[in-house]
């Protein structure tokens, strides 16, 4: 199994979720995060002073999937999350050794 982690633009979360549902993904976990990257940040103004805010709001998605579908899922996310503009984010994949469904104790593919 693989853990796919994607960091995307916040307003893309609905599109990505819908695309993943369509692709048959049954679960994922979402975190509000801030990202630092090439996109750079933006300037905020407080009482005449300008501050460079280089951490911009992003959404982080993580989902564990079977090896067989991992590549496809990465593609689905990429397509749904892409706007073609800088700051669209990253997707990375790591190996998962074990997964357990808390409710039932099922393991492996059954637990996803």
């Amino acid at each position, binding site marked *: 199994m693989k853990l796919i982690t994607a960091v995307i633009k916040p307003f893309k979360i609905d599109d990505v979720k819908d695309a993943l549902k369509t692709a048959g993904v049954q679960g994922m976990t979402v975190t509000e995060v801030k990202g630092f990257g090439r996109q750079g940040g933006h300037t*905020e*103004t*407080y*009482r*005449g*002073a*300008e*501050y*460079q*805010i280089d951490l911009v709001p992003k959404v982080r998605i993580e989902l564990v999937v079977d090896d067989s579908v991992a590549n496809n899922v990465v593609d689905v996310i990429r397509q749904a999350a892409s706007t073609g503009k800088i700051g669209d984010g990253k997707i990375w994949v790591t190996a998962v050794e074990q997964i357990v469904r808390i409710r039932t104790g099922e393991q492996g593919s059954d637990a996803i």
Partner: protein
Amino acid sequence: MSILLADIDTGATAWVLISTALVAFMTPGLAFFYGGMVRSKNMLGMLMQNFFAMGLISVIWAAVGFSLAFGGSGQYIGNLDFIFMKDLAKIAELPGYTGDFGLVIPILAFFAYQMMFAVITPALITGATADRMKFSAYAVLIGVWSILVYPIVARWVFSPNGWLFKRGALDFAGGAVVHINAGAAALAVVLVLGKRRGWPRDAMPPHNLPFTMLGTGILWFGWFGFNAGSALGANGLAAQALVNTHLAAASAMLVWLVVEKLRAGHATSLGAASGAVAGLVAITPCAGFVGGASPIIIGAVAGAVCYLCLSLKTKFGFDDSLDVIAVHLVGGIVGAMLLGVFADTAVNSLGADGLFLGGGASLLGDQFIAVVATLVFSFVVTGIAAIAIDRTIGLRVSTEDELIGLDQSQHAETAYQS
């Protein structure tokens, strides 16, 4: 009901009572105005300092403050005739408040109204010292201040027996007594206290601007009581003061936003809030002495000047965290001096005519003296008090406590949890 007095005007009393409540509501308003601007770890510290002023200063005011400000016939300080409100429910008139200045409201109403001014004035200092002052040191400082500074300046300026009042200096609702006084004190404390760790290098953006806007709304609302209540009657003068108050806030907001847009590229909500407050500060001394379009002009000048003075702190390197000096000290001075220009006896026959209304420069001179006297007195006495506290119990929290934040280190609380 035995304390009903024959010559009391019930309309005036109703207006002063509700104005008292409005001014009391300003301190919570100020707490949110400032609280929204600090980082979340210092939110409760800020709120607490302001609410605590409502507790401590009120009791001190009842005990000695009012008496020091309004007792007896001295020019520089009152006496102890009224400690713990002694006789206030019984006496027929307050020293100095006779003839033209006679009160048509119960003296206890006047006492209560003035109490709320005494409370909010030291609370203004919290904006300058944000994020790094020990709670115990703060308590001592404002306690001392409310005995040694506030009642004295109130005596000089507000009481018909005070030397500045007698000279002819005008201050309708506290440009000097409240804003210059608190602003000068803030400057003194900040110099003793030192900068926040990381300032000015690190950005310390407001953690909750909606709270700052809420505070602004409450302050604006309360300021109608602050300024128009100072007419001490429900009459045309109160209406004039209310109109002036609102229009000065409005015009200062607009001008601040325009200057901000031109210089920093955006009109911000914090700018709208700050501009409005700057206008409210500047109109405070003028509210019952000017008329016509003057409040619009006074607000406009305050909006621009206060905005431009924001950079003083970085230039001179004092960390006035939330700009009490640029807004209250500078705004108060702008108002006090412009009053020398725009005052109009057609609006208030107990006032004077300013430069533009044919009164010559004499009022301007008196205003200048009042500004300087207040500023110097407050700065010096507060500075000495701050140094004394610093040398004894210490003014400032430890670095560790500053990093953790005041909420946890001073009050063992967390502002926001799920």
